[in-house]
């Protein structure tokens, strides 16, 4: 308090008391630094922990990015690699979370398929459209029903959505040319 008011310990006449006050002040300053660090760690932890709070998975990615930014700013680029690894693991979790989210809307998607959707820029809406309007083919080799929309993309490429014959779960999604194979049974 005295320090905050700009009053120095040199005004204390008693040597022993001044020494004790200075020592106490040192401890206080050290504690302040520790508290500041804990607060920053807490913020970072809070950002990361919010990942597990029920909310849309896109929001979760945003929170995870913020946590990494804080982490990077505080600990420097050397630790960034660890943070990036955490983010990658988080992304994996996002894929899983995303899968759950899709399940909630009635569309069951495997992690493998969710990953392909993310990589290939295929949205849930596109998958739903393919399932509703695509031509269905049986792939006897892989045991899937494939729903194909020929020239479904502006680029002229086809969209193929593979599903499990029994469960209807989406097992893969493809975007490419000539996706209907000779062995497919309409």
């Amino acid at each position, binding site marked *: 308090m005295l320090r905050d008011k700009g009053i120095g310990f040199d005004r204390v006449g008693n040597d022993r008391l001044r020494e004790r006050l200075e020592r106490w002040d040192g401890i206080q300053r050290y504690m302040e630094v520790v508290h500041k660090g804990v607060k920053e760690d807490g913020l970072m932890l809070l950002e990361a922990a919010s990942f597990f709070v029920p909310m849309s998975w896109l929001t979760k990615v945003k929170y995870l990015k913020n946590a990494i930014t804080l982490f990077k700013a505080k600990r420097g680029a050397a630790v960034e690699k660890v943070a990036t690894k955490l983010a990658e693991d988080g992304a994996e979790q996002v894929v899983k979370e995303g899968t759950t989210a899709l399940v909630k809307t009635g569309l069951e998607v495997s992690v*493998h398929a969710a990953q392909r959707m993310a990589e290939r820029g295929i949205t849930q809406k596109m998958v739903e459209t393919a399932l509703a309007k695509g031509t269905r083919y049986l792939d006897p080799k892989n045991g*899937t029903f494939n729903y194909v929309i020929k020239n479904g993309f502006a680029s002229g490429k086809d969209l193929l959505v593979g599903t499990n014959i029994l469960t209807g*779960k989406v097992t893969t999604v493809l975007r*490419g*040319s000539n996706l209907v194979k000779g062995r497919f049974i309409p």
Partner: protein
Amino acid sequence: MKILEEILYDKQNRSVLIKEFQELIWNDNNPNEILSELAYDLDFYEPNEEWRKQDISYYGDERLEEEIKSVIKKIKQQNEENAYEKDNLDSTPDRSGKPGT
């Protein structure tokens, strides 16, 4: 063919190489049918054992290698057949009795 051999032997970069191969095929407007089927079939390869359990259509390294080896064999066979046909066509005499061109 080279990229297929790389997928076989460079096990650490398998997934990346598969993606490269698929991109090559799916961006080609007139791909070889055998390679096109392989690109599609490779989409069911899942290296993660846990994720692989989610559907019966997924497979691991063992089947991946079988699929690729089988395709390499088919492509070689196809090339040999094409070369044989070409040779025969070239050596078939035309009406004047001269060998075809």
